[in-house]
């Protein structure tokens, strides 16, 4: 049954929820922000998460993985969304791991995946080159040079870009700047000569970086899969990332909405709880209805990754667009319904508001995915 959690997934969700409430509540993100933590996440927390197997949920057993698939990682991400836990989980265990799984050679998989599974190797996908998600609009060049290549270009909004051990850089081997053909992905260790990393501090207090590559020497063994062929699998990696991000956003929305409803019951004005006012009741009820839709969409999308790959693209766009809109709406309503306290930094609602805006931009905003869904449907 795809749309109802099985026993294994329920247990995973419960364990994850308890662990994160204790080890990585929203207050932990606040502490990282206030102390300007150089790493941007708690390395000890990540070690514990890896010990619980979270770095390897989607990896096959022969790579040291749990092999629970996306339905498994989905419930964990939902819980990390609930507490806004900062960690390499998304960039490494979902996006990086998927890139190596789908695009890597057997040697690369054997070399890197066990390290990922153990939480010893963190990754970051260096994809974007502008302020909007344009996955095939790649000007970064990968040019032949002797036995290997030279990599040159500039990347922005690289999630975990300043903290990851290695970067997966999307670059162009051939073709027009907007073409899906001719793309390559190369694995670049962070301390390689010619790599300049500039950490960016963004509204959500999570990790991102701008990265410049100037004539970086790349050995042919660093090319993930075959040179110029990444276009065949990159979209599938991004779709997995979109669906995973939608799961994280669902957790955040559930949490921010639960806090809002609790506040409506608690806050008294005019001698009654404000939740008794119909103007607020109807807005809350309509959010509840939207949340029901979002739950179904995310559960189905996670299942599709594991079981119906032919539906992957359309479900990824449906899930990301649905959660983008709901996250925007739910966080705005949360601030408004909390009133004055809603715009203070003391209340944690602001953290959810800010994270939602960043998450909405990751791998495609609403307009991007509406357009893609329509195109996939032939209109």
């Amino acid at each position, binding site marked *: *049954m*795809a*749309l*109802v959690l099985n026993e294994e997934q329920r247990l995973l969700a419960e364990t994850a929820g308890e662990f994160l409430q204790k080890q990585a509540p929203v207050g932990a993100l606040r502490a990282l922000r206030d102390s300007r933590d150089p790493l941007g996440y708690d390395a000890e927390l990540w070690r514990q998460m890896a010990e619980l197997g979270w770095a390897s949920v989607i990896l096959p057993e022969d790579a040291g993985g749990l092999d629970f698939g996306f339905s498994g990682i989905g419930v964990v991400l939902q819980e990390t969304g609930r507490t806004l836990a900062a960690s390499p989980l998304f960039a490494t265990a979902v996006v990086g791991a998927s890139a190596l799984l789908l695009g890597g050679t057997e040697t690369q998989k054997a070399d890197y995946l066990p390290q990922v599974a153990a939480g010893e190797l963190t990754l970051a996908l260096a994809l974007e080159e502008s302020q909007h998600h344009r996955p095939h609009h790649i000007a970064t060049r990968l040019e032949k040079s002797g036995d290997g290549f030279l990599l040159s270009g500039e990347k922005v909004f690289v999630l975990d870009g300043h903290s990851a051990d290695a970067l997966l850089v999307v670059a162009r081997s051939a073709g027009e700047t907007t073409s899906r053909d001719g793309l390559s992905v190369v694995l670049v260790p962070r301390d390689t000569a010619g790599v300049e990393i500039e950490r960016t501090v963004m509204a959500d207090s999570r990790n991102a970086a701008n990265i410049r590559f100037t004539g970086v020497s790349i050995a042919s063994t660093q090319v993930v899969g075959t040179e110029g062929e990444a276009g065949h699998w990159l979209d599938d990696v991004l779709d997995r990332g979109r669906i995973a991000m939608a799961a994280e956003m669902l957790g955040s929305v559930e949490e921010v909405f639960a806090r809002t*409803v609790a506040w*409506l*019951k608690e806050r008294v004005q005019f001698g*009654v*709880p404000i*939740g*008794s*006012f*119909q103007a607020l*009741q*109807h807005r*809350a*009820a*309509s959010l*509840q*209805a939207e949340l*029901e*839709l*979002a*739950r*179904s*969409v995310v*559960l*189905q999308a996670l299942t599709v990754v594991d079981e119906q790959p032919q539906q992957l693209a359309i479900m990824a766009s*449906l899930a990301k*667009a*649905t959660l983008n809109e709901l996250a925007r709406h739910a966080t705005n309503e949360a601030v408004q319904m909390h009133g004055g306290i809603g715009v203070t930094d003391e209340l944690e609602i602001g953290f959810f508001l800010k994270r939602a805006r960043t998450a909405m931009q990751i791998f495609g905003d609403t307009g991007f995915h*509406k*357009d893609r*869904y*329509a*195109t996939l*449907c*032939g*209109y």
Partner: protein
Amino acid sequence: MEDLDQFREETRQWLEANCPASQRLPNTPEEQYWGGRGGSFASEDARVWFERMRDRGWTAPEWPTAYGGGGLTPQQGQILKQEMKRINARTPLYSLGLWMLGPALLEYGSEAQKQEHLRAIVNGEFRWCQGYSEPGAGSDLASLQTRAEDQGDHFLVNGSKIWTTAADRSDWIFCLVRTDPHAKKQEGISFLLIDMASPGVSTTPIELISGDSEFCQTFFDNVRVPKSNLVGELNQGWSVAKALLVHERKLMAEIGGDSPRKEIPPVEAARRYLDFTNGRIADDQLRSDLVEYEMRMHAIGLTHMRSFEERAAGIKGTVGLAMKYLGTEAIKDKNELLLAIMGTRGLGWEAPGFTPEELDTTRLWAMSKAMTIAGGTSEVQLNVIANHVLQLPQAPKAATES
């Protein structure tokens, strides 16, 4: 799982062998069989199809066999629906008795009432209509004023009901009536079954903005009703009514695809009525509206599936309560979208100059406005979600449905 696979295989074979070819074509309103004393079949095939389904208990697949139902489990019932849909088999019997009254009788009726009415419903002997709303009692249903006075061996009923669908063609009506005028609103209401042939019952059709007049106002003038027609306890009709409303809302949430009028699916309408450039709809606004609608319907479809899977897994979820609101609002959106896509060709009222489908589009648009009013307005649905799912405190004085 294996048993279900076998059931699917047997059902598929039986349907293939027993559903006449003509009964696999789309149904027009004139061809629907609604049963009742005045009911008639549009064709011999329709009669044969109905009788075969009836004899198998499959006009009411999930009712107990003791009352003429099919005795299927919910999973089997779902498979039957899917297999019927697969070959476009027509619904053999349209009936408010099947969809609404029956489930309430199964829960609240006396054994004698179940014996008297359930098999008759399965067999399509009587056509039923619903008497809930009154001219002065719409969303505030509990303020209803139609009175049933205890006269010893019978009730004497006086008052009037509105939005009684097809009352002029129905044999029986299930009604909410006030049996204790002094009790607090919900507490003095009873659930009563009334034979429309009783002296003192009369009906007047109501014309709608769509030009249709499916609905009537029904009047009761000193109508004598046997006491054995009371369903559930005296003054406890509100619980029966609430149970029945759940069935009505579920029905309305699912009804979209079953409209008798020919409807152009929005994507198809876009291909016929809009310009395309390089495979894309040229009008960005309409393209955006269309994809938003399509994505929403995709999400609603998945949510129906989730709701079903939750029920099958024995999980008491909260999804169902939102579906009437989401489903009917989406239908209204669809009809507005179709009008926008078709431009002036979506506004024809009568022939000539428009195709029958175009004319249906206009009428369906007008009809769709009732979807978010009938069976509990969207605003009442939101009250229900706020109070029962979110457990927000009751509004101090505002009207709420409890």
